[in-house]
């Protein structure tokens, strides 16, 4: 793996993906707006809800932070792939000493990094706002500083983003137009979010906060899925496959 070549691919992907305002807004602004809405909603609910239920409610917001990088990741991944296919720019790229692994790594990092970093910034805004809000003086609000949230946001969310990027590549390689590929990726992102939401929701419904064991199981499951999709992607990014199987 040559870091210079991976970095070159990352910069190329970003140039392609972020040339439109829609992509910039989706990746950079959408998470911040959602976070501000969450803070506002939490303040509103605090004044109207039974304080006993609030820790479980917080876990719902955890889902939002976990799902936050998925849409931006899918957008960057799909845009890069579809533009490469439309311009037929992959063949000249594959003639260079760039390896399939470097190309895949560059594309995954380009897709995952901005959305993940922005989701971390959003989490930072959230925790900062919470630490300055009057209604968070109660000890029950301490949970979002805890290990569960940190594992969810700094481990599971990036892993999910990598999974979505890999799925986006698999879909894009078989799809002829960008909107269809983007729709499919969004559907899969929504499905992943829904699955997490069901898991967290079940815990919340039973009036207890998210058990750390459950998160670790989710993390293990995502790692397993990542390995499987990565193996598929490595096969997909072989030169002969790119030239003849990508539609």
């Amino acid at each position, binding site marked *: 793996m040559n870091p*210079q*070549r991976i970095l070159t691919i990352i910069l*190329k992907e970003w*140039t*392609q993906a972020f040339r439109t305002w829609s992509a910039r807004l989706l990746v950079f602004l959408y998470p911040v707006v959602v976070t501000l809405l969450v803070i506002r909603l939490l303040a509103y609910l605090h004044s109207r809800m039974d304080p006993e239920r609030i820790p479980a409610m917080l876990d719902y917001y955890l889902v939002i932070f976990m799902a936050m990088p998925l849409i931006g990741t899918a957008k960057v991944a799909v845009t890069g792939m579809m533009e490469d296919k439309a311009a037929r*720019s*992959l063949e*000249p790229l594959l*003639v260079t000493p760039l390896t399939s692994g470097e190309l895949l790594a560059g594309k995954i990092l380009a897709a995952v990094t901005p959305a993940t970093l922005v989701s971390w910034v959003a989490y930072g805004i959230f925790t900062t706002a919470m630490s300055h809000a009057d209604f968070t003086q109660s000890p029950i609000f301490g949970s979002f500083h805890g290990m569960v949230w940190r594992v969810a946001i700094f481990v599971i969310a990036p892993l999910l983003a990598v999974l979505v990027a890999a799925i986006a590549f698999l879909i894009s390689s078989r799809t002829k137009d960008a909107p269809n590929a983007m729709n499919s990726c969004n559907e899969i992102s929504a499905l992943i979010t829904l699955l997490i939401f069901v898991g967290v929701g079940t815990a919340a419904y039973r009036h207890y906060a998210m058990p750390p064991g459950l998160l670790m199981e989710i993390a293990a499951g995502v790692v397993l899925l990542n390995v499987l999709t990565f193996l598929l992607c490595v096969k997909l990014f072989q030169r*002969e496959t790119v030239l003849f199987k990508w539609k």
Partner: protein
Amino acid sequence: MIEIKNLTKRFSGRGGGIVAVDNLSLSVAPGQIFGFLGPNGAGKTTTIRLLTCLLRPTSGTASINGFVIGRDDQSIRARVGLLTETPGLYDTMSAENNLTLFGRLYGMRNATKQVHLFLKMLELWDRRRDAVGTFSKGMKQKLAIARAALHNPDVLFLDEPTSGLDPDVAKLVRDFILELKSDGRTIFLCTHNLDEADRLCDRIGIFKHRLIVADSAMNLRRRLFGREQMFRLRRIETEWVTSVYNLPFVNQARAAGNQLYVRVDDPEEQNPLIVRQLVGLGAEIQYIGEVSHSLEEIYLRIIEEAESAN
């Protein structure tokens, strides 16, 4: 130096699949321009893709400057450049950034200097900061050629470099190719432009899934048509044609209008004898010249013979 031995590529599919390249053996010397000619679907692009390590051969071997495809792919990729059928440029990036991107992928330390040199040589300097999406087809093609040659590859594969270009741009591209040749690069040129192949190439290979023939255009001309001489006479008599044909060194003689066509092996030695014979018979010779057959005639004859042999 390109060395190809029994290279075969079979694509699997229904009915046993398709053999795109069948037992190709060929060598191209360093610093040569080799013209690879053949009809559409003959397997020329597949051959290029095999030699640039984009495809794996089904059997056979090939090497580029001693590096074997399938074994030394990374070394080969660092030493070859490819102009693909479609330019495959990034439309949203500037011309300069398109080239710089590839310079970085090739690990070039002086990429900027080389990028600027090529942009100037190919008359793209004034538009270097413009998005490639705003370029004409000719400008895109020039940029794609610059990209292929940017890292000073030992061997350059050019697939239809002047296809669809206007004469001015095509000439600029041809001059650029000759400039690259003068720097000692080996150039493997796929083209349908036979006039261009005739002008640029040291050797020609005619290919239709298998290599039919590979030689210099001049040798191919001689092999197919011999050295045909044209004698333009003030008037022509049938017995003069017979008389010339009866000379022991004449392979063929025919008349067309007031022109006498004579095929011989050594015109420098034998033309004076023909002139003496004709003048002795009372002929008045106005002009003598060697008939030049176009590469198109050679190509069509070879393809036709190959098809009838099959």
